[in-house]
């Protein structure tokens, strides 16, 4: 990794697979006349290598089922990866026991998608916010903890006098603020945000995005932002990583990616964003259906849907390689295929 020494978080060849074959009885199947044991493996994340630099917002985008949420949870240690490693400031954290993990828990926090499920409905806001501080700072007095709860509530824009209420008394936007407050309570450096605004209305979405950007500016936070909403990505990201079927397709600085996407999948994705007032339907039409992550296609993972696919794409797996400084993509023809509206390509260059 070119940046490993100064990166905050490094992922190395991360694989996360799920065995969904169920109990022994569910696995048994007849093949011809022979009884065989069949396992069904979902390959959610495959060989993902990535560096996250301090202070940046790295967005991971992709469509549903592409493994972006699994990636987030594997980084947070909620899932144990099958292969590969996760390093936090150079220290390997994916094989730690719960106790060894504790110092890292203070540094890494997470914000969740569903503001209705991510807060324990039986607890008051105060209890929800108090828990992380209490747990990590046992020496603090009740008064100090309460002070901190009130300070953070103030910061995220929830009136501290509502601290004794339960989550169901708040609207979706306010709950998401509380969820952010919980993550901020332990004063982390790094926050994984899993679709934090997808469940919110447009006007509320803007409030939450502003809050997150403001918290980042004030506290020097580093974000890993998981989302499928490309206009949100364009607005908040420093760099963007595009995922498809558990693989990284392309990683690039946000401005470059939106100006000239290299990978055919990124191109298709960007062309499909509904733009305000643009009455066009000249988006890149993908062929076929998204394969399931249970049996991944051979060769390039994207070839069955790619309009530029050649013979080599069916046989060989393209390397995730550097195309330009700071820009990497997994495509044999990265930067050489594209469509006319892409300014950086200088016209249609079909192979």
């Amino acid at each position: 990794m070119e940046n490993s020494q100064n990166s905050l978080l490094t992922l190395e060849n991360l694989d996360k697979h799920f065995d969904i074959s169920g109990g022994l009885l569910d696995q048994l199947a007849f093949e011809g006349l022979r009884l065989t044991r069949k396992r069904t493996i979902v390959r959610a994340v495959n060989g993902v290598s990535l560096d996250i630099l301090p202070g940046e917002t790295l967005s991971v985008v992709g469509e549903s089922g592409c493994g972006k949420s699994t990636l987030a949870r594997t980084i947070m240690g909620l899932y144990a990866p099958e292969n590969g490693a996760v390093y936090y400031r150079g220290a390997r954290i994916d094989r730690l026991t719960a106790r060894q993990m504790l110092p890292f828990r203070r540094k890494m926090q997470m914000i969740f998608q569903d503001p209705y499920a991510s807060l324990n409905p039986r607890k008051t806001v105060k209890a929800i916010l108090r828990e992380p501080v209490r747990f990590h700072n046992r020496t603090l007095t009740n008064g100090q903890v309460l002070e901190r709860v009130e300070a953070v509530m103030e910061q995220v824009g929830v009136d501290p006098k509502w601290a004794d209420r339960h989550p169901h008394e708040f609207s979706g936007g306010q709950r998401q603020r509380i969820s952010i407050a919980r993550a901020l309570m332990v004063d982390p450096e790094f926050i994984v945000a899993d679709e934090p605004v997808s469940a919110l209305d447009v006007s509320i979405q803007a409030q939450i995005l502003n809050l997150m950007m403001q918290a980042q500016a004030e506290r020097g936070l580093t974000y890993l932002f998981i989302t499928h909403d490309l206009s949100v990505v364009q607005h908040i990201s420093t760099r963007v990583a595009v995922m498809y079927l558990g693989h990284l397709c392309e990683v690039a600085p946000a401005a470059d990616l939106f100006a000239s996407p290299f990978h055919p999948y990124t191109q298709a994705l960007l062309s499909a964003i509904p733009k305000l007032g643009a009455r066009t339907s000249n988006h890149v039409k993908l062929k076929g259906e998204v394969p399931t992550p249970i049996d991944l296609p051979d060769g390039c993972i994207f070839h069955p849907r790619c309009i530029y696919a050649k013979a080599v794409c069916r046989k060989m797996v393209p390397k995730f390689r550097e195309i330009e400084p700071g820009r990497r993509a997994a495509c044999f023809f990265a930067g050489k295929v594209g469509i006319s509206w892409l300014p950086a390509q200088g016209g249609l260059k079909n192979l």
Partner: protein
Amino acid sequence: MSHLLEVKNLNVKFALRFGELTAIDGVSFTLDKGEKLGLVGESGAGKSVTGFAIINLISKPGYIADGQVLFDGQQLTTLDEDALRRIRGDRISMIFQDPMMTLNPVLTVGAQMIETLKAHQRLTNRQAREIALETLQKVRIPSPEKRLNQYPHEFSGGMRQRIVIAIALITNPALIIADEPTTALDVTIQAEIMDLLQALCASEKMGLILITHDLGVVSQVTEKIAVMYAGKIVESGPTVDIITTPRHPYTQGLINALPGSRQPGETLSQIPGMMPTLTDIPPGCAFHPRCNFKTLVCEMEVPLLMSRFDRARSVACHIKDN
């Protein structure tokens, strides 16, 4: 000239244990043949309820308290259940957000299409099957012969929504009401479904009411937009005009809150607060607690939806020259 659909002063109320709630308050709009209208608003604005009220499908404790829905000159709000059933699913079809809610998981796609068809037309199974095949081709489902005999779970999300659209189309309706048809789908699939709906409206001369929270989608598909807030239409007019020169402070706020409206990294302009719940709609203009331009009159008087600027546009706001 008579319109395909004319909604006049529609009021929907819910009778609840602590009193009555007004979910839809004086909604009026018209739709012509082949025209596409976007009903835009945030959750709780009453846009879905409006969709249901058009086909008189408000379930208890809700009821249509007042107003008219004229479809092809026929009053739907006072029609009896039998006559309504002949219109629903035949002349007016609905498409919902979650295709799995609409499709019956234990029946093949073909069976469900044929069932819909035979409920409204006298056909033999064979004829019905022919039409089902044609319709599947129309919504661009590959190998329709094979697909007809498959169950909903064998389709992907995007394909399922195509099936739902096919079922909605199969009776050649004059009007389709699509309630957040692509919200559950990925962007690439959303773009395809929207293309499809647009093409079908053009070729079949269908009217379309697209109910959604996504201004981007609406702006690409529809000719007219009606923006709803707290049960009322606050602004309506041609799509291009509303997107480029929104007049109501709420519409302006909505458009400015979109991440694409600012340079990356800049603070987004936000509408403070949130939409009031139906239980505590403020007096006067329902938007005034969140409005930057409010005056005294906004807190006292409900602004009427009035034609302004030019005949096609209406705004419900006290401020004269937004």
